């Protein structure tokens, strides 16, 4: 195994969960998120040769993930996040007895994130990964204060959505 492969294995092992969650936040449908996840890994593999160490490895990984997500969605407009057809995601009648409370909560959260606009989903996916305002600003190439203001607004919107969404809606 060469150095590149070792580094790739290590990067994926340490970051795969975060990358996957970012994909899940950005794309509601799990199968599309899986496709995006593989695309991100593919792009990480391709971009490794170009990594010059100017940014932290984690920042680099998140940049590749976010930029791949932007690119993916633009090239695959069929994955636009229009509301799913009625009944498609309606819970079964005995959902309460089957699903754990935690899973229901998670479904609700995913549904609420999906209600955010595309660019807000990207930002909130980084916030949910516990990235600081400074790191998010570095990933996006924006100003820390501006990012802070945006995050506050998105958090408030997400909390409001969580409060106002009932189990019948997702």
């Amino acid at each position, binding site marked *: 195994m060469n150095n590149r*492969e070792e580094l*790739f*294995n290590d990067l*994926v*092992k340490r970051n*795969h*969960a975060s*990358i*996957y*969650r970012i994909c*899940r*936040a950005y794309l509601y449908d799990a199968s599309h998120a*899986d496709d995006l*996840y*593989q695309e991100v*890994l*593919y*792009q990480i*593999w*391709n*971009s490794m040769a*170009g*990594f010059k160490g100017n*940014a932290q490895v984690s920042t*680099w990984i998140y*940049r*590749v993930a*976010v*930029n*791949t997500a*932007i*690119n993916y969605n*633009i*090239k695959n407009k069929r994955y636009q996040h229009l509301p799913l057809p009625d009944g498609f995601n309606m819970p079964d009648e005995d959902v309460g007895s089957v699903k754990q409370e*935690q899973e229901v*909560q*998670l479904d609700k*959260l995913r549904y609420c994130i999906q209600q955010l*606009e*595309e*660019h807000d989903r*990207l*930002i909130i996916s980084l*916030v*949910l*990964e*516990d990235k600081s305002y400074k790191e998010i600003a*570095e*990933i*996006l*190439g*924006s100003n820390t204060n*501006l990012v802070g203001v945006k995050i506050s607004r998105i*958090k408030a919107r*997400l*909390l409001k959505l*969580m*409060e106002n969404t009932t189990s019948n809606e997702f």
Partner: protein
Amino acid sequence: MNFDDIQKSWQAQPVNALEDVSQLKEGLKTLWEKHQRKTLRNNIWVTVSFIVTLAAIGWIYVAFNKQYGPMFTLSIIMIYVLLTVYLYVLWKGFAYRQNNLEAASQEYIDYQISKLNWRRKTITVYSWVYATILWIALVIYIIELTRTGSALFRYTALGITTAYAFGITWWGRFVKCKKQLIEIDDMTHDLQSIKDKLLA
């Protein structure tokens, strides 16, 4: 519920993503190599056809240059330069195919928009410039070659060459690349929109 609870719930979700990358890695390599192979095949095909063309033009020059004046040589040089420039751009694009994904999103989006603008200009402007220079070279060549021929023969050859050069360019611009231009415009608009909303 506060945001910390949401965050904990999010991070605690089961992740079904592939962690063992040994299988995936092979898939990624295969995908990358397949993509590269396809581009490589196309480039080799174009290069071989250009080399055959260059060889044929070279043979014409060697065989007939004593019979014609400096304009003949000039036209051959122009065609050589144009074909060589085309091949250079083709292979440079293959060698430097990069997406700049490791850049900050603002820089990445700007880079993508500039790439799309370049593609747009290539279709709408540079292809016409290229066709015009090629046409001039061919006109010089034909005029020199038909110097001793009849006017009818000369103008027929010029007419056919002109119709072919600009007909092909026109077809490329308004038929073949029409859909591509719409896609380029859509993608540019979408990228600009994301940039404005994400970073403003």
